[in-house]
Structures are given as structure tokens and as C-alpha cells.
């Protein structure tokens, strides 16, 4: 371990100075095989490196988090503890009934710490939603960054408030609870890297960390101006071509009704209608949807009047935890316009692309059949 490094930003590696693109890397883990840093593009990420043996459930780590939390107005969250559940840590908060799972045991990837010049040091990198490092701090082990510094950096990457909801709140910052969760989750994900990242194992370079052409020089990261029409309203976005419709909806437009389940077209939680047909927003590039009409779960109700399918799901209790429900409902609305036989079995077959881990299937089928029998053709 080096103990002599200065407790400021890392001047030794110009690639990692604020303003440069964060090098991409890949986290290989049996339960999260495909997570790359670039997958988190579109949301702020705090990447942290800690020495081996770092234990997030230690009192001082929790205190560190709480220091940050207390400075966030309107959040009222107090982190109580981290508990280990198999490969995952759960973060438990006092007043909020939130449990944030995060990976506790990724394979050792010292290569990543090396990419960031953070070997043998505690380091923090605040990366904005475009993947650019906005702030960094690199210090000897045992000298964590000041909470105020991190908070300031978090504030700098918080999304701007939307024009529509411009009602100026007294709040002195634009960070919402959701934004903070995203950041915390990302932090959590990133922190866990650190637990192993500095175990300099010379031979351990076979990992999934194809050190992605140090993303610094890659010009393909350029964004494009597009207009997405969602529920009848046009949204002008400057967007990375890699962004899916799902990410654009959730992270840029602020419509979080469409859910990210598998992100690989296998679960249906992200189902939306494009030009009236049900499709998977996680496999659709946002840049390819210009001129098309996107309908999401937010666009179904007419004011306070629910779409018949939404009402039927309520009436028949067609959900338990609710996570798959927006996808189920959008898929069911799409089904109404397709040639589908009259039987329950036909509905099951034609809803097979929407998985429900709670097993609410019988009630989902009943809800859909109800709407079909009522032959309701509410405008979509």
C-alpha cells in the first residue's frame, strides 16, 4: 500500500482529471454478468475504490453515508445498517422503507483500479450522466474524502429540474430522492469494486475487463439531437445513440412507469406501444424512434379516469409487488388490437412475453378477459 500520495485529485494521470471521459470497464459476476460502466450512462455514477478488507457495515462507513444524507434536504433518510444476504448487501434506512440491494462479492478486478490510477488508494470519481468525470479525489488509505466535497460534486451532476415542473421549491438543490437512490445504487455497485480492486494480483487479468479501448479517445460517444413523441408530447433530447427508449424514458424524460427488469428482452417489464404496437423499449434505440408515437403506462389514463385495462387489473387484483404491472398492462393493451383467440389459453400464450415473479398470472388473465369480453375499445 502506498501511504505517501497527496490527498488531492490524482495529478499523475491526466486521463482521469475532471473533464475527461471515464474509462469503461466490465464487471463480471455470475449474477450480474453484463454490467459495464457504460450501461449506467444516462445517470450520474459515483465510483469509489477502497482497499481490501473494506467492510461497508463498519460504523465509520455508515457514519460517512449519514453525513452526506443529513445534508440532503427533503430526504429524511437515515442509513441504519448494511446487512449481508448471500452475495448482496442490503442498505436499510430508518424512516424510508427502502432496501437497496448491492453486489457484495464481485470477482477481483485489480485492472479496473489500475485503469483509474487508484491502485492502493482510496479514490472517488464523480461521473456525470454523459460519462464525463466531474470530480475526483484520490487519497492514501484511511483518508476518506470529506462528505461536503462529495455532496458538492453530487449536486453538480444532479439533473436539472424540468421546465414543466418549474414550481420553484425552497429547496436549494435539485437532487430528488430518486436521483439520490440512483447515485447511491451506483455508488454501492461501485464501492464493491473497491473491496477487491486493489488486491494487486499480477496474473488476474483474464477477467471480463476487456479494458474497452480507453474510452477517452472514442468519438462515438457523441450525442445526437432527437425528438421523441411520448404520450402525444414532444421531447427534445440530446442523447447518446446507445440510449434505449427505456433509458430515455426513465432517465431523461423522467417517466419511470416503464420498468427495467432484465434489460435484455426477456421479461417484458419495459413494454410500451410504438405506433400502437407493443414492443420492448429495452431493445429499441431512442435515436431510431423519431417520428413514431410512443405510448407508455403514464399515457393510458384520461385524466382521473383509468384505462379499462388499468381498472380491470385493479378489480381483479392482477398484481402483487407491482413491478411487472406496467409492462403487463401495456402488453395487454397491445394484445387487444391483435388477432388472438377467445380462450384463456390464447391470452396466456399471447402474454407469455411478460413474466411475473409473484405469480399473479390467473388474475392477470381474468383482468384481460374481462376487458376483452366487455369489448371495450378505449382509445390508446
Amino acid at each position, binding site marked *: 500500500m502506498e501511504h505517501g500520495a497527496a490527498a488531492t485529485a490524482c495529478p499523475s494521470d491526466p486521463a482521469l482529471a475532471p473533464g475527461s471521459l471515464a474509462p*469503461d470497464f*466490465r464487471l*463480471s459476476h455470475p449474477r450480474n*454478468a*453484463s454490467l*459495464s460502466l*457504460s*450501461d449506467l450512462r444516462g445517470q450520474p455514477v459515483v465510483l469509489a475504490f477502497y482497499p481490501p478488507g473494506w467492510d461497508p457495515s463498519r460504523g465509520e462507513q455508515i457514519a460517512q453515508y449519514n453525513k452526506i444524507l443529513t445534508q440532503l434536504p427533503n430526504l429524511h433518510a437515515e442509513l441504519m445498517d448494511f446487512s449481508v444476504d448471500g452475495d448482496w448487501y442490503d442498505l436499510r434506512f430508518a424512516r424510508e422503507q427502502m432496501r437497496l440491494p448491492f453486489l457484495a462479492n464481485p470477482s477481483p478486478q485489480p485492472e479496473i483500479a489500475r485503469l483509474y490510477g487508484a491502485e492502493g488508494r482510496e479514490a472517488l470519481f464523480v461521473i456525470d450522466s454523459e460519462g464525463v468525470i466531474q470530480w475526483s479525489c484520490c487519497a492514501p488509505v484511511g483518508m476518506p474524502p470529506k462528505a461536503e466535497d462529495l455532496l458538492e460534486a453530487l449536486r453538480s451532476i444532479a439533473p436539472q429540474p424540468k421546465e414543466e415542473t418549474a414550481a420553484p421549491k425552497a429547496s436549494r438543490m435539485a437532487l430528488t430522492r430518486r436521483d439520490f437512490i440512483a447515485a447511491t445504487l451506483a455508488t454501492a455497485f461501485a464501492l464493491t469494486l473497491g473491496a477487491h480492486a486493489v488486491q494487486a494480483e499480477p496474473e488476474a487479468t483474464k*477477467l*471480463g475487463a*476487456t479494458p*474497452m*479501448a480507453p*474510452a477517452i479517445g*472514442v*468519438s*462515438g*460517444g*457523441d450525442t*445526437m439531437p432527437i425528438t421523441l413523441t411520448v404520450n402525444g408530447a414532444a421531447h427534445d433530447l440530446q442523447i*447518446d*445513440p*446507445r440510449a*434505449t427508449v427505456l433509458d430515455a424514458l426513465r432517465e431523461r424524460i423522467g417517466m419511470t412507469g416503464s420498468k427495467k427488469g432484465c*434489460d*435484455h*428482452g426477456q421479461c*417484458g417489464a419495459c*413494454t410500451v406501444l410504438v405506433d400502437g*404496437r*407493443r*414492443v*420492448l423499449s429495452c*431493445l*429499441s*434505440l431512442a*435515436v*431510431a424512434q423519431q417520428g413514431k408515437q410512443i405510448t407508455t403506462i403514464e399515457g393510458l389514463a384520461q385524466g382521473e379516469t383509468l384505462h379499462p385495462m388499468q381498472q380491470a387489473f385493479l378489480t381483479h387484483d392482477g398484481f402483487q409487488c407491482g413491478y411487472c404491472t406496467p409492462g403487463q398492462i401495456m*402488453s395487454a393493451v*397491445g*394484445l387487444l388490437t*391483435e*388477432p388472438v383467440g377467445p380462450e384463456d389459453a390464447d391470452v*396466456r*400464450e*399471447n402474454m*407469455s*412475453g*411478460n413474466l411475473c415473479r409473484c405469480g399473479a398470472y390467473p388474475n392477470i388473465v381474468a383482468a384481460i378477459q374481462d376487458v376483452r369480453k366487455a369489448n371495450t375499445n378505449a382509445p390508446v
Partner: protein
Amino acid sequence: MHPFSYRQASDEQSALSGVSGQPGAAYLAGGTTLIDLMKLDVQKPSQLIDITPLPWTKITELPGGGVSIGAMVRNSDLAHSEIIMTRYPVLSEALLSGASPQLRNMATTGGNLLQRTRCYYFRDITTPCNKREPGSGCSAMDGYNRIHAILGTSKHCIATHPSDMCVALTALDATIVTRGAKGERRIPINEFYFTPGDHPERENVLEPGELITAVELPAMPFAARSHYRKVRDRASYAFALSSAAVALDIQAGVIKGARIAMGGVGTKPWRALDAEKALIGKTAGPDAYKAAAEAALRGAKTHKDNAFKVELAKRTVIRALTMAAQKTA
């Protein structure tokens, strides 16, 4: 996902010129395979040419009784097309047995032809795979290979071709129409795919930048008596462990013509010509179907976890033939 630049092609010419001389460029159609594999870093195009605006969205009758299907026709539209349902029911059934309604609304005819294998090792960049990284080795060979192929394999690759649609097209003797630097090509589907051999990374005869514009089905009156049978681990929304696309020409109880192709068992959509021959002139019935199934699986080579596929595939063929024969032509 690796960064890429994106451009929409306004017409065929701009699509072709967008890709020519760009080794990292790829066409984007429905995206159901490509975007998935890009998220996994299995495919890393530096440039995407979106061809979905191209106008190949029609299903048209050809003089002589055949049908031309535009490359951009969505799987759901093809499956529900009246002409396909009546003249080539096997194709409609195959399409509807594949993926989910959402994916079928996205996936195109041309894209489905180029669907990539579901071999877990191909999709996992942390493991060796000759198809993804030539020369790195095959993880499936001595790994978990329950879903892998038993026909057309080589010592370098045993990945299964995943498509249902292509199995039906293979049984129907489809022709793939392409456009490239050298003009138009018409490729019989039986000559379109390669078995892995020494080069699992080469999957078909398309030249770089060559674009599929249409698929043509020949006139085949007896294909009205055709059927697709698919066997999988769950009742719906799963890839085939074994499938069979069959068409039967039965006259006065005697088989005059037959088409059999198999899915889930081959490294490409597998035409069973020997099985077809075994049926000709035979009385339609269990004995003939059984003999055909035996012929279809002759030469099958199994691995640790997929030996069950031999018997399963035979039964799939027998069941498909039985069901097709019960249809009124």
C-alpha cells in the same frame, strides 16, 4: 455497450454506401438480436445503419404461385398474413411459436435469418468461444451443453441455430434475395448457411455490406398440408430443444412428396433430405414416419448433456408428420 455512431438509411443506395468500406459498420433492423448482443459486448459495431425506413414491407404474390416477402416485414405481420396462413401454414406456425408478441412486432424477416445462436458461452464474453473469438476454444464442448447441436457440429463449435422461422423456410425451399456491391444475388436457403467446420465465425454466405432485400417462397401447393412442431422446456416463450417443419403431399394415402427440416438440433436450420426420400412412395402412417425419423437423425453426434435430443428429435419429426397428415390439404 461500446460507443457507435448512428445513421438512418433513406433508401437502398444510402444503406449500401453507408456500410461499404466500413468494417465496423452493421445494419440495424428490428434490433432484437443486435442490441441484446451489443449490451453483452458480444457485438461491437462502430457504426449502425438503421434500415428500418426501407420500404420492403410487403408480402406479394409472384407469378406462378410463389410469394415474395420483403425483408422488413415484421414477424407478427408475416405470421398473420392470410396468404401465408393458407398456403404455407408451417411458416405461420413456426413464427408464432417463436419469441413473444413484443419481439415478433419488432423482429424482421431479414433479421431473423441472421439471428445468432443462444449458446451461453457465445453470449458470455468472459468464456472462450470460437464463434465469437476465432481460435479461443469452445467452452460448450466440455461444458454444459444440453441445448447444443447434434447435427452439423465440428470440433470447434456445437452451437445451435436458434430460429424457428428459418426452419420453416428451409422446409419450404425459400430463396434469399440480396443486394450488394456486385448487384443482386438469389441464394437458395440450403446454400445460405455454413456449418461451423473450421470457421464457426462464418455463419452464412453474405459478403460484407450485402443486404437481404426479400425472401421468396416457391409455389408448393401441398404446403397447405404442413405443420411446425416445437418442443421446449416450457409451454411458451422458449427456444426449441427440438422442432420440425414438415409438409406432406399425400395422394390416395400414398406420400408423393415431402419436406422435412429440423430446428434446435442443428448448427444451421437442418434439412433432412434422406428422411424425405424415405417417405416417397410409402403409405402415409406411423411406419413410414418412424423410418423417416430414423433417417433424419442418422449421423447425430451427441455430447455429455444433449444425448436426449436424438430420441426427442425423432419423436418430434414423427409427431409433426402425423399432425400434418391429419390436416386436409
